[in-house]
């Protein structure tokens, strides 16, 4: 078939991009070559709309071993140990086919991590669905949860934390972001940079099939009414094969046979071979007849663009082929020598002894398009003027019931009970806490991880929202006693071709960058998912932040459940009564406008570091950050988990009870301390100029507010625990 402009457009390329390809090649590409260009130049692989802005993120630091640009980021956790981690989106496939979409998202991110030599030790996920009233939501939620569990459980990697939200902006585009942490010795990290000429290029893992062809291109476009037709572009996962691949790769990695290794993720064999050669400034030659295929008569075009899962490409040292083959035979996996590295700096493909493609690698990578898209700044919305009398008409208990049973606040136990969260025997903080925590096997150390997003705040004011998500991640790590180290980000947005959406992206990234810079909390990996949009309706901007921190002595880990009667409860951080964009404003007052709570990075850092100091001095019995739903929501969850009550009074502030209890000011924590330590705690807080309120005292089994409103623990549990399981069953 002769390639022409229309065929290029059908491949998702723009007219001028097609012209650029012809200019670079000084000829018209053949169909296989066009397919390769379309795979490398789509938004998902080339970051053409985002690259300019991502460059501004802080990506280095004392603990950073590897920042963005590899399969995953790597941080130092001392004693020669390192953590490899990354988050990635699998949004488009999960909307089309929720089980397989979510499953292969989990499989893909684990592969990114073990490609670097790390054994995966924890999975997390951030999943976002349309309104609970929307007809598709229930099935999508069930499918996604089954898919995540189906893959992660079979791999034997615990799923230790996550986040689930519902918002009508996801009605036509759900989000599925999967994150994995792996553990590796610092001196045994593997990279994707090929080196040396005439080195054998090895294909291992599953056979190549026709599934997932053009998956990355599909993920780089908006949806329309024909989405059902796109089902064949969704990959099908096989976690069993991936488990074998994991064990086989780690076994091979224990030796010294591997020069470079890269998993075949988005754009399959195309991007993996090109990336390895490009990073090593080399060429690569592949004989496609040698590629193990699942189906007969697959064309070079299909072989290069298939996104079949559970495959890896390895550049080996010469003479190590037999050692490697023996290991993959043991694990019953395909092993094939499919090519070699060359000095041509071209990718050359052969099929039936004929050359079927020859493209200079720099045209695919360095010369890929980069756009400085137009974007629109979002003004800070005006504050709503709510009359003080307005608040008086609400009964706290009724409001609390509504807030605790809100789909975005209620217990997600129905979800995480379907994930194996205890396999590997090191999970010391299960899902449902501020962060999941796993021990570093056989040591006193533990690693904490959390995944967060605040689409409402980002939508109201992207700059503030971007900062807020990073701060929330930081707080969630501190609340379990971990020292925050670094983040990975998954940036989910609408179409970059629309100025509003592009503006949301640019300003969220700016906010993320500012907060990361200030908190010394660098970005080490991540991905961008644009075109989360059906026809003209895009999602609320949803950057998901995956934060990782270290607990040096796992015995010092903190959980959020209230521990002991008569202990004192303090609120760390100042409450200003910011109601706009709070759960209370949006769901009780039905007021959707106004600015999100302001972020004061100085307070954020100071409050966080001080809480961490208190924890490390063994002065804190339980801790929880204050996030959506305000102080009373945080305290309620601590009561529920501890199965114990609290008595508290609103401090004498110039604001109503409602404002004090439900406002969503940032930089706040609830901590429980023993009465005998009050003086010590006060002196540390005062010394660091941290504002705090003496809030209440832990009691037997009721929540008593200002001596008059009584809520029993059973009532709190009923409000919080039933919504999701009732909804699903």
């Amino acid at each position, binding site marked *: 078939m002769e390639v022409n402009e229309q065929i290029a457009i059908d491949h998702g390329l723009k007219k001028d991009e097609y012209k650029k390809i012809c200019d670079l090649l000084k000829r018209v590409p053949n169909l296989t070559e066009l397919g390769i260009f379309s795979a490398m130049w789509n938004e998902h692989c080339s970051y053409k709309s985002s690259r300019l802005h991502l460059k501004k993120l802080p990506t280095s630091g004392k603990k950073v071993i590897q920042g963005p640009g590899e399969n995953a980021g790597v941080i130092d956790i001392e004693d020669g140990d390192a953590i490899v981690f990354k988050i990635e989106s699998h949004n488009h496939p999960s909307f089309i086919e929720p089980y397989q979409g979510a499953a292969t998202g989990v499989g893909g991110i684990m592969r990114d991590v073990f490609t670097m030599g790390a054994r995966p030790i924890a999975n997390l996920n951030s999943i976002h669905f349309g309104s609970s009233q929307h007809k598709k939501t229930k099935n999508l939620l069930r499918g996604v949860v089954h898919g995540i569990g189906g893959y992660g459980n079979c791999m034997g990697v615990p799923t230790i934390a996550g986040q689930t939200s519902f918002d009508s902006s996801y009605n036509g585009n759900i989000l599925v972001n999967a994150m994995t942490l792996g553990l590796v010795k610092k001196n045994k990290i593997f990279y994707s940079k090929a080196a040396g000429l005439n080195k054998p290029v090895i294909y291992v893992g599953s056979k190549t099939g026709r599934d997932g062809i053009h998956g990355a291109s599909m993920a780089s476009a908006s949806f329309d009414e024909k989405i059902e037709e796109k089902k064949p572009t969704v990959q099908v996962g096989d976690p069993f094969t991936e488990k074998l691949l994991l064990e086989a790769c780690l076994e091979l990695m224990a030796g010294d046979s591997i020069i470079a290794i890269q998993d075949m993720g988005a754009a399959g064999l195309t991007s993996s071979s090109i990336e390895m050669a490009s990073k090593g400034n080399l060429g690569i030659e592949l004989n496609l007849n040698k590629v193990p295929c699942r189906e007969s008569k697959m064309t070079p075009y299909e072989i290069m663009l298939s996104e079949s899962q559970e495959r890896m490409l390895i550049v080996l040292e010469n003479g190590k082929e037999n050692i490697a083959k023996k290991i993959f035979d043991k694990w019953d996996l395909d092993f094939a020598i499919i090519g070699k590295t060359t000095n041509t700096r071209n990718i050359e493909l052969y099929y039936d002894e004929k050359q079927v493609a020859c493209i200079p690698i720099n045209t695919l990578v360095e010369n890929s398009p980069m756009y400085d898209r137009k974007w629109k700044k979002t003004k800070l919305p005006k504050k709503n003027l709510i009359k003080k009398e307005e608040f008086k008409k609400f009964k706290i208990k009724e409001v609390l019931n509504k807030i605790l049973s809100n789909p975005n606040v209620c217990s997600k136990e129905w979800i995480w009970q379907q994930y194996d969260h*205890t396999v590997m025997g090191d999970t010391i903080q299960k899902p449902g806490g501020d962060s999941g925590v796993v021990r570093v096997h056989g040591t006193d150390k533990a690693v904490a991880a959390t995944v967060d997003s605040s689409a409402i705040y980002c939508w109201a004011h992207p700059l503030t929202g971007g900062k807020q998500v990073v701060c929330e991640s930081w707080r969630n790590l501190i609340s379990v006693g971990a020292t925050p180290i670094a983040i990975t980000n998954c940036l989910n947005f609408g179409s970059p071709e629309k100025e509003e959406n592009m503006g949301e992206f640019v300003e969220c990234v700016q906010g993320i960058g500012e907060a990361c810079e200030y908190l010394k909390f660098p970005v080490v990996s991540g991905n961008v998912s644009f075109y989360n949009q059906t026809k003209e309706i895009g999602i609320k901007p949803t950057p998901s932040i995956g934060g990782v921190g270290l607990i040096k002595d796992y015995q010092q880990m903190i959980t959020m459940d209230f521990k002991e009667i008569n202990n004192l409860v303090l609120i760390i951080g100042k409450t200003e009564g910011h109601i706009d964009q709070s759960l209370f404003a949006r769901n009780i007052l039905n007021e959707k406008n106004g600015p999100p709570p302001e972020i004061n990075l100085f307070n954020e850092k100071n409050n966080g570091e001080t809480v961490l100091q208190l924890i490390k001095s063994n002065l804190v019995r339980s801790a929880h950050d204050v996030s959506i739903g305000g102080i009373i929501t945080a305290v309620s969850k601590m009561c529920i988990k501890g199965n114990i009550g609290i008595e508290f009074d609103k401090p004498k502030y110039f604001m109503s009870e409602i404002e004090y209890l439900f406002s969503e000011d940032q930089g706040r924590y609830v901590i429980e301390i023993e009465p005998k330590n009050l003086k010590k705690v006060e002196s540390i807080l005062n010394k660091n100029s941290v504002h705090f309120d003496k809030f209440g005292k832990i009691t037997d089994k009721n929540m008593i507010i200002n001596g008059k409103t009584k809520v029993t623990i059973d009532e709190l549990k009923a409000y919080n625990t039933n919504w999701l399981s009732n909804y699903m069953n």
Partner: protein
Amino acid sequence: MKSAVITFPGSNCDRDMHVALNKFGFKNQMVWHNDNELPKSDLVVLPGGFSYGDYLRCGSMASKSKIMQSVIKFAKSGGLVMGICNGFQILVESGLVPGVLLRNKYLEFICKNVFVKIDNKDNPYFKNLDKEVFEFHIAHNEGNYFCTNDQLKEIEDNNQVAIYYCNDNGKTEEKFNPNGSLKNIAGIFNKKKNVLGMMPHPERMIDKSLSGEDGSLFFKNLINNIK
């Protein structure tokens, strides 16, 4: 005391079991499914996981693997063989214990702590345990025990039910049954009570920082019984 844990392709609780056995004094050896012979052992464990992906009936492929010939021989000669979770499914598929394990009643994977009742103590596994109600951890999709009425009669006549799901007071009512198992059965012995299959994972409860410590009681008692 020597133990052996079999690794099948897709096993994923093999390391956890290895750690637990060593912690409580066993000298454990990992054995590959494709080996012919078992090393000399006082206890053989089939660990949890997804052997062969559980793409056929859970445990059915593994039950036909090479090493299982030796395991079956070992069991028939009176050797102690314990199957946890997927290991229980493999035992059922190899016919070493009666019954089958169906998909959980609510068609969902369940990972949580449950209470179990162990009152059948005339056997090497539970002899000398000084309490009846334990908090164990389950994590499975196919743990819904089922057998025919005739089998059930035989099982009960021979006192082969090893473990029941219950509440914290030891009540074995249907509402404390997490997966729909017949009679709340969580574990079963063979007739001679040298083979034990159970869904709960004692190896995940061996440390106060984990889900609990009742697994420690089980392993400590087990090694003392074998000594």
